[in-house]
């Protein structure tokens, strides 16, 4: 029995369907990320898991209990909110022990738990302060402390890092991951940040318009996106989508790319079978920036690599890599090149395409072809 299982869960408000049949399941100790643009229903789903929103139809199980009609306090969960939602009138100590107090945990036990939590999160020196006297990062820690004090079987995080500045966000992200490793409690974590999703999750559910677009491990979702939306949403800079015609080449099939005055047809052996049906028609050819780099002689002969010389429109140095923009079939395509090999705008450079992970979409249905 999994830690959390969501079966065909739907939610409607005034006849509007917000969630259209969600199915998800995680094992004990797994870190589930719900990610998607705002309005996709991820926070509503989290609220429903927490018991703060009712379920229109379907079933939510936590552990081996159906919790649809249980109140939040009986679900054995704890939640960290985006605004932290610390009780402003209570000290940090009181904030952490409030839930214990309500559950009638003996005072001595409460003190012991508060101390343990404070040690875990290094907030011992803050225990007698009020939330208004804490910095954003400290509030975040206290909010997590309040959640872990009760040792629930499931943690819910609602965009907990989005109120922090960029540097602190990265630090707290690492801390959450460490905390999860140490405690091994299952977590459901809502975010709109695909980097948070990739770095934290054991499983990711990419959502859009009330539906799960894809559910899988971060690597699966990154390498094998189910559709155009997932492919574009995950990864930064995002995947290039190049409208390209499928043509027969060298006994197989490939995509026709035009750049500058030159035309190239890249054979894609891995997708041969599936591209056959699209011969002569246009598909969306998806390739991530890191799969287009400077020419590397040692790989040049391998079948999944293709090289082509293309004019550079713009370069964007990021430090470790330089993003080079080249026009292909009328689209600006981002290539991730080592700074030492990047050319200058106006020049052209030889680029090497790794086609082993390239993907293809139907431009009309936006579904994956190959």
């Amino acid at each position, binding site marked *: 029995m999994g830690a959390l299982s969501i079966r065909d869960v739907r939610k409607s408000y005034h006849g509007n369907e917000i969630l259209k049949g969600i199915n998800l399941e995680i094992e004990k100790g797994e870190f589930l990320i719900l990610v998607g643009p705002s309005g996709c229903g991820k926070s509503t789903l989290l609220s429903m898991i*927490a*018991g*703060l929103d009712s379920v229109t139809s379907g079933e939510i199980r936590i552990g081996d209990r159906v919790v649809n009609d249980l*109140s*939040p*306090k009986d679900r054995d*969960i*704890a*939640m960290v*909110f*985006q*605004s932290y*939602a*610390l*009780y*402003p*009138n209570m000290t940090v100590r009181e904030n952490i022990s*409030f*839930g214990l107090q*309500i*559950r009638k945990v003996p005072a001595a036990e409460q003190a012991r738990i508060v101390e343990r939590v404070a040690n875990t999160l290094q907030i011992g020196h803050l225990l007698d302060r009020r939330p*208004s006297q804490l910095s954003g990062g400290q509030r975040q820690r206290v909010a997590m402390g*309040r959640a872990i004090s009760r040792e629930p079987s499931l943690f819910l995080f609602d965009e907990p890092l989005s109120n922090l500045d960029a540097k602190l966000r990265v630090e707290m992200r690492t801390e959450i991951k460490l905390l999860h490793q140490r405690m091994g409690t299952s977590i459901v974590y809502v975010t709109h940040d695909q980097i948070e999703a990739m770095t934290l999750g054991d499983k990711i559910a990419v959502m859009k318009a009330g539906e799960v677009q894809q559910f899988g491990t971060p690597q699966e979702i990154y390498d094998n996106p189910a559709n155009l939306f997932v492919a574009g949403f995950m990864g930064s800079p995002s995947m290039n989508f190049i409208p390209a015609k499928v043509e027969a080449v060298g006994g197989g099939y490939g995509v026709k790319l035009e750049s500058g005055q030159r035309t190239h047809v890249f054979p894609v052996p891995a997708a041969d079978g599936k591209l056959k049906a699209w011969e002569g028609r246009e598909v969306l050819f998806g390739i991530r920036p890191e799969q287009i780099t400077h020419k590397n002689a040692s790989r040049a002969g391998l079948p999944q690599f293709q090289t082509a010389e293309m004019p550079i429109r713009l370069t964007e140095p990021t430090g470790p890599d330089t993003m080079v923009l080249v026009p292909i079939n009328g689209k600006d395509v981002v290539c991730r090149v080592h700074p030492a090999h990047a050319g200058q705008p106006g020049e052209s450079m030889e680029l090497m395409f790794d086609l082993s992970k390239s993907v293809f979409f139907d431009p009309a249905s936006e579904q994956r072809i190959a």
Partner: protein
Amino acid sequence: MADMSVAHTAGASKAGRFIIYGLLALVCLYYLMPLFVMLSTSLKSLDEIRAGNLLSLPGGFRTDAWVKAWDSACTGVQCEGLKGFFWNSVSFVVPAVVISTMIGAFNGYALTMYRFRGSDLVFGMLMIGCFIPFQVVLLPMAQTLGAMGIANSTVGLVFVHVVYGAAFTTLFFRNYYVTIPDELVKAAKIDGAGFLRIFFSIILPLSVPIIVVSVIWQFTQVWNDFLFGVVFSSGDRQPITVALNNLVNTSTGVKEYNVDMAAAIIAALPTLLVYIVAGKYFVRGLTAGAVKG
């Protein structure tokens, strides 16, 4: 804003300040004049009042008018001053203020944090209560009090003021509570707190500024009320506002302006005191939510 526009040069800024403070001083003077006249008149003897003009200072510090107003001035047939009526007012104003504030806090909490089907409608109907003139409810209220068996009693008067005040206090608390993030209540629900526990442990401790606003407002309204007092009470149970009216209108020969003035100040003193003690919270409470604390 005025500050910024005149701050171009040091000279202009100085002149601007001079004008601003001059105007403020004039306005203060204008508003303080009646109080000054009341105070100085209450300290004068009747001879001084007849001889001097309205603005002249009293010859000495005489408190006989105050003593008389408190202790022995006639309010109709009996001549025992305002003291009894003062405590009458205290005895119904305090419970009326406390109860209506509590109801307002509770209503506001239920209407914002526990939105139910039709909660906006309920709130809308409550708001209509703010716009109903006192006179309109006199007759139905008299019937209701009669039916409840609390006509002509302190309890009845408290009831009337609670009913009338609840609309305003609900409005205050509701508008304050919409600025408190829902997530606070959600967090408490997950922590296991119930409806009442959340109210008493979390929401009420955050409500101090708006409680002060509500108390000041209700205290001023109820203490200063004349109409309900004169209609729904009688004899020696009347509030001080009614007694003051009787005192001023009871003439036995000479009109004692000094006693009238002293009596009026006594009647106004409690509200004045409430403003002085809690006034800064009043402004703070009314603007709360504009700046998130």
